[in-house]
Structure formats: structure tokens, C-alpha cells
């Protein structure tokens, strides 16, 4: 584009804002070409199915079409909010997801940092590969392993604690509701740290080597380098992932809690998604299930956009 003088620009700005808009569009046509197809795509695949949300305001029976249903306004939501169980599962969901959030953004980063410090290539790559293997083992298997290890009937953890004389009798870890959240978080950490650290490793490898060399010259030690170069270097990636994950606090699935749970810890183990399954689609209450889905979505959106807003206020940058 030819450069205009400041005077010309100001004139343009005041006189014809519309043509400036189109002008810019033309100028950025490649960017538009690269993105518009996806906008259409996302409209079709993500926004169009939203019509299903109408179900939440009806008493949906599959027999009739979506427009011929009995409308019940907010009844489904009222029923949802007056169910004690709903608050229980909400508490469980948030409890476990917040713990999970904290752990999954500290441990993998630490792991990636330490991994980076390893100089032996073979050892480094092997450990990195091994570390993500548990990601591929299904929760069914992992839950079985965890239950066995924590079992009071010859489980490894109890054996270890008793050999070290830390306890006299085996502890039934899986029977204690208060510990359930920690057990779930720890199991998840075991299973996913390796996998979650991959993205941070990638981010770290994008940091300019020159910075490290300069720091060495300045006499910085390992920790100083980590603190002043590596961590800031992955800050953007970290913050983006973190903020986006905040939106997922409320819909964390239910597989691992279901598989690790048992009747003794049921008050701590049931999460919102399981509640939705049991009281929604399994009872053919599509409207109720949809109402829960809407609740989830609304809360998620509020969470993520609030987090982003706070981030913007503090750092003047924005994730979204």
C-alpha cells in the first residue's frame, strides 16, 4: 500500500470511514481468505446445532418435531436448581476440577523444566517417551491399578507405609470420601503429566538460544536461567492454556470419577456430567439433560471470559 501523509490519512478517516473499511479488507484479503472458510465451517458445525437448546424450554418428547412441543419456560431449570443433589454434584465437580487445574499447570511445567536440563539425549528422549505412556492406558485399567495399590488387603502403598513403620494398620484409602478428590487428582497427575508437558516442551524449544548464552556470560546459574528465561519464554503459551482451561472447570466428564468411585465415597464422587446422564438421557428426560447442558455452557463462558477480562486488566494482553 502506498504510504499516505498524515494529513491525507486524517482526511480519509473523517471523510469516508466506510471505504476505509473496505479498503482495509481488500488489503487484508489473504487473511480473510485464510480464515473465512473456517468461520463458515464453525458456524455450520458448532452454531447450527444450538437449535437443540430449545429442548430445554420444553417438555420434549421425541415423537413430535421440535416446534410442536409443549413449552414449559424455565421449569426445567427451576427443577434443576431445586434439587439438592445438583448442588452436591456441583461442589464435587468444582472441587476436583480446581484441584486438577492447579496440578495440571504446575507439575507438567516443572517436569518439562527438569527434562530440559537433562543433557544426555538418549535418557532425555526415553524418559519423555515413557512419561506419556499412561495417557494411552484407559481409565478402566488405571482405576483398577490405583484401587489395587491403595487396597488395605495387600496393596503396595499400605505395605510400604507399614514397612517404614509410619502406620500400624493398613488404611482404606478408597473408603474415605475426603480423600477421594486427592486420589483422583493424584491419579490424573500420574496419568497425564507426561502428555501435558509436551506442549510446554514445545514452547521451550522455541526460546531463542542466544538468551541462554548471554545469561551464561553474565554468570547466571541453572535456576536463574530457568526463572528468568525459560519461564517467561513460555508465559504466553502457559497463560493461553490456563485461561482457556478455566472455562472447562465445570465440564470435566465423569469417567475417572465413576471408575475410581464406589458406594462409600459416592457423596464426593458424583459429578455434574454423571448426574446429567443418570437423570437426563437415561430417564428419557431430554429437556432436563439439555437444561443441564445449557447451564454448563453458560457457566463455562462466564468463567472463561471473566478470566480473560481479569488477565486483560492486569497485563494489557488478551487471550481471546
Amino acid at each position, binding site marked *: 500500500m502506498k504510504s499516505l501523509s498524515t494529513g491525507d490519512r486524517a482526511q480519509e478517516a473523517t471523510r469516508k470511514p466506510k471505504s476505509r473499511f473496505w479498503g482495509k479488507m481488500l488489503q487484508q484479503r489473504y487473511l480473510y481468505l485464510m480464515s473465512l*472458510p473456517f468461520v463458515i465451517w464453525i458456524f455450520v458445525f458448532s452454531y447450527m446445532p444450538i437449535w437443540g437448546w430449545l429442548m430445554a424450554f420444553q*417438555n420434549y*418428547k*421425541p*415423537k413430535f418435531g421440535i416446534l410442536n412441543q409443549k413449552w414449559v419456560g424455565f421449569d426445567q431449570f427451576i427443577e434443576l436448581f431445586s434439587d439438592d*443433589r445438583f448442588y452436591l454434584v456441583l461442589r464435587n465437580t468444582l472441587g476436583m476440577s480446581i484441584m486438577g487445574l492447579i496440578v495440571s499447570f504446575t507439575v507438567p511445567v516443572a517436569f518439562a523444566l527438569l527434562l530440559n536440563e537433562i543433557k544426555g539425549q538418549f535418557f532425555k528422549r526415553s524418559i519423555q517417551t515413557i512419561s506419556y505412556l499412561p495417557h494411552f492406558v484407559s481409565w478402566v485399567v488405571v*482405576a*483398577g491399578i490405583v*484401587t*489395587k495399590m491403595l*487396597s*488395605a*488387603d*495387600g496393596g503396595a502403598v499400605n505395605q510400604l507405609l507399614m514397612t517404614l513403620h509410619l502406620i500400624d494398620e493398613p488404611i*482404606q484409602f*478408597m*473408603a474415605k470420601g475426603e480423600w477421594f478428590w486427592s486420589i483422583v487428582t493424584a491419579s490424573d497427575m500420574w496419568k497425564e503429566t507426561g502428555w501435558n508437558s509436551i506442549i510446554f516442551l514445545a514452547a521451550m524449544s522455541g526460546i531463542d538460544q542466544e538468551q541462554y548464552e548471554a545469561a551464561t556470560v553474565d554468570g547466571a546459574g541453572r535456576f536463574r536461567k530457568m526463572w528468568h528465561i525459560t519461564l517467561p519464554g513460555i508465559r504466553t503459551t502457559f497463560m493461553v492454556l490456563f485461561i482457556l482451561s478455566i472455562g472447562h472447570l465445570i465440564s470435566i466428564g465423569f469417567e475417572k470419577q465413576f471408575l475410581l468411585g*464406589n*458406594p*462409600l465415597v*459416592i*457423596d464426593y464422587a*458424583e459429578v455434574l456430567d454423571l448426574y446429567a*446422564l*443418570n*437423570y437426563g*438421557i*437415561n*430417564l*428419557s*428426560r*431430554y429437556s432436563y439433560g439439555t437444561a443441564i447442558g445449557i447451564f454448563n455452557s453458560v457457566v463455562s463462558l462466564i468463567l472463561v471470559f471473566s478470566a480473560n477480562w481479569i488477565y486483560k486488566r492486569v497485563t494489557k494482553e488478551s487471550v481471546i
Partner: protein
Amino acid sequence: MKRKTQMLFSLMLALVFVFVTACGSNNNSNSNTGGTPSATDAAGEETHAPMTIRLASGDVNTSWDDMQSDIGKFLQEKTGITIKEEFPIGGSDAEMFALMVASDEYPDLVMPKGNVGKLVDAGALLDLRPLIEEHGPNLKKVYGDYLNRLKWSAEDDSIYVLPLDGVDHKYFDAGGGFQLQHQVLEELGYPEMKTVQDFENAIKTYLEKNPKTEDGQPRLGLSLNGGEWQILISVTNPAFYATGAPDDGEFYVNQDTLEAVMHYQRPEEREYFRWLNHMNDIGLLDKESFIQKYDQYKSKIASGRVLALIDQDWDYAEAENSLKAQSRFGETYANFPITLNSSIQDHSFQGTGYLASYGIGITKDAQDPVRLIKLLDYLASEEGQVLVNWGIEGKHYNVVDGVRVIPEDVQNMKTNDNNTFKKTTGIGNYFMSARYGDGVKDSTGNYYTTNFPEQIQAQYTEADKKTLAAYGVSTYKDFWPADDAFPERKYGAAWTLPFETGSQANVIFQKTQDIMKKRIPEAILTSPDNFDNVYDAFLKDLDDAGVDKLNAEFTKMVQDRVELWSE
């Protein structure tokens, strides 16, 4: 990325967008049900032109053979029909049928289990009554007087599903009750085994004398499969069996007034759970009962450490088979109908008449309903029933002096490698129509099914035989009261009563299940003096959840059913 790969990727992307438009229209034809529809049929004319039909089953069958088995091929040849069966994979059957209804596209045949209501509401199932009248003589014959139990409701006397449970089914052996290892019984000299006290004493005595197994592992008195959904089978259902009630699901129905309450509300059952609490208190109950996963439960049993169980044989079969494979027969189990005290009798086998529960239906999208009903009719005929039960003469059984006999190698595969057996022969995969149950004989004097009294004897191990002989009976079922000891339940069995889809009663029911799963284990594991508090809290929770409304609703369902079936 190198230049070449760049080009490749952009090419692929372009191709995608081209294909979207092209394939979009082309694949129209592919989305219809596969296969050729039957050759033009005027009303009901029989053709054996090949036809492929879809059958959606709500129950998973991992041994389905895709009609490649011996029976499958035979059926294909005879009728020209190829059946493609679909199952709910990794999801629930509720989802599968919900999607079906939402998309308004149905396979030819469905076995919807408890989802029938959804399909009927959506108008998806055909009324089979006229089809049976005209083309289903065998179906009529098999159901006999029970045909009247097939109608849908008082307002709608259509027949939507053909129930698949065996008509006039007799149980030849008892698979439930309470189990004790043979070695326990042997060492104690085969004591009387009638009440929970007998049961408890046997366990206690043996455990005191033999606290560890040969490999030094501690023995467990009684282990319950209470960590997963089987809590119903191992912990709560035995409560009504031991207190003289039959299996009516989660309810108890008063036979005279037909009033229903949740069975936990019966005072007798409180005492049963108190006994379990007592067992826990004196250390005879496996502390992991409510924590263990199914695999752990099975491996405990398979290690021979568990002296007693309260379970159904199919639930611990895998573990028992492992013991048998190790030739540790003394550590396998005998079954007894234990009750709370000697005046109570176990009602496991109280008659129901024909249950008429889950079945098969023909949908409105079926390509050729007449041909399908004829297929089902064939399967219900004597020839058809022998086919699906016994297989093909000469291959899976022989007729020796008029008696059907299964050759040893076939029997071996059936017992030891049942999955392969089902897949190759097809026996067990084609129970898709009306049929007689165990114990009914056909016109040749042979049994329709391959389960009959003599068979049971053949399946007993030496340890079983020894124990049975010591008690002077020939099968475990002999311990139980006779089948006709109690009057038949006029409503069949209450667990077959379907809740109205999406009804409030259904929601309350789900809540009671959640409450039960929490409170019952709590009551069992707490200290004895706290037991009543917990159980009272349990009953109160049920009240708060609306159990009275649920009971009233269920009572009405029972009464409606009695009325419907007595017409």
C-alpha cells in the same frame, strides 16, 4: 516443512473442499439401509429373494457371528434373509434408541429391552396382532394362553413386542442363594444350613481353625461384590430373598392387597442388614466389599481365599472356572437358600406365569413385515426351535434311538470355550423369537432346549456331588421350596413393569437408588449401636425423596397389570 510436503498439504486441503461438494450428493444413496429389498411382493407372497435386514439389539452380544455360523448360513439359505445386528457400543442402549427416535429412522427389527416405551410413543412399532393372526400360527401356539399377556395396555391392545423369554420355563438348578466353599462344609461335617446363624457359625468356625491358606494368605470370611453395580445382586436383593419375598425388583408387593412398597421399608429387611452389620462387626465380612472392583472380587475368589459369597453363579463364574482350571475343587462353592430364621422360606422360585418381558418388535420402516413375521414364525416352529437350541443334526447333535445327544467334542467346546462355540455354531445367537423354556418337550419327546435335568448332573464337579450326597439331595435346587409351594404372582414379576417414560415416578426411583447405594453400605459398616440411626436416616431420606408417591404409582402399575392380564 519441505516444499514438497507443503504442496502436498495444500493439495489435500483443496481436495477436501472439492470432495465435500461432490461426495455430499453422491452419498445420498449410500445412507439407505444396505442391501436389496425383497423382490416385488404382492401381499404376502413368499419369495426367497435375498434380503438384508437390520436388527438393533439393546443388549450387547460380543459373540455375534454375522450369520457366518452354521446356523446363520442355514437360515440364510432357507429364508434368503441376512440379518445385520447392531449393538450399543460403549454407550448405553438408552442413547442408541433415543437417537433412533430423534432421527426417525428405524431398522427392520428391534430388541429394545426397556426402551419399548420410547418407540411406542414415537409410533415406531407395528401392531403385530394382525400379522400373527394371519402368518404366525407357530407364534400363537407357543404363546398359547399367554398370548393375552402380550398386549400393550388397557387402552391399547396392540401387540408391539414378541417376548423372548422361554414359555413354561422351569429352573432345574439354583444359581443364587448363599454360597459356601465345599472345603468348609466338609471340615464341619456338612452341618444344617438353613439360617443366617448356621451360615455365620460355619464361616466363623472354619476361619478360626484355618485363618490362612496354604500360600500364607489370610482367608476372608464373606466377601460381597458391592463396589460396582452388582451391589444389587450381592447386597440388596438377598435381603428380600432371605426374608421370604420373591424378586419383584426394588419393591415388595403384598399379594393380597397388591400394595407395593420399596422392599427396604420392610422391617424384616432391616434385620437382615443388621445381620450383615453384625458380620462386619465380628470381622467376618471383607472390609473391601464396597470398595473393590469387579476384577479384584473375582481374583480374590480365584485365589481360593473367600470362604463364603452371597451372589449369583453367573457373576462369579469366571472366578470359579479359574479355580476349576487349577483343580482346586474344594474351594468352589455350594448354594443354599439361607433365610433370616427357620420359619421363613426362600421365595426365589415363586411362580410368575409367563413373564412376557423384553422382546422383539417390527418397526414401521421394515422393508417387508410379512416376510419378517414369517421368519419369526419359522424360528418359533418346532423345527426352528430345535435349530436355534441344538444346531444342525449330524453336526452339533445326533439322534440316537430317538434321543438327541450332543457329541463330546461339541459339548467340550460349549463348556470350555463358550465364545468360540457361539461364534462358530451360532447356538445362542438366534434367540430372536418366541420359544419354549427349559423343561418343555417337543413332539419327539426330546427337550426343546439343551438344559435339562440330566445335563445339570453332568456339570457337577466331584466336590459338588460329594456335598449334595452328604445332604441327601440330587441338585442344589432341592434345598429350595418346591416351585408350587407358593401361589403364582398374578402380575408376573414386578421388575418387568416399565415406568412411564420421563415420569416423575421414574425420577424418584432413580433418587431412591442413589440413596440406597449410599446408605446401605454405611449401615452395614457402621458400629452396631449406630445401625438403627443410619437405617432410620436411610428411611427418612427415602421419605424426603418422595417414596410414598413412588409406592402409590407403582401400586397402580401392579394393579393395572393384574387387571390387564386377567381379561
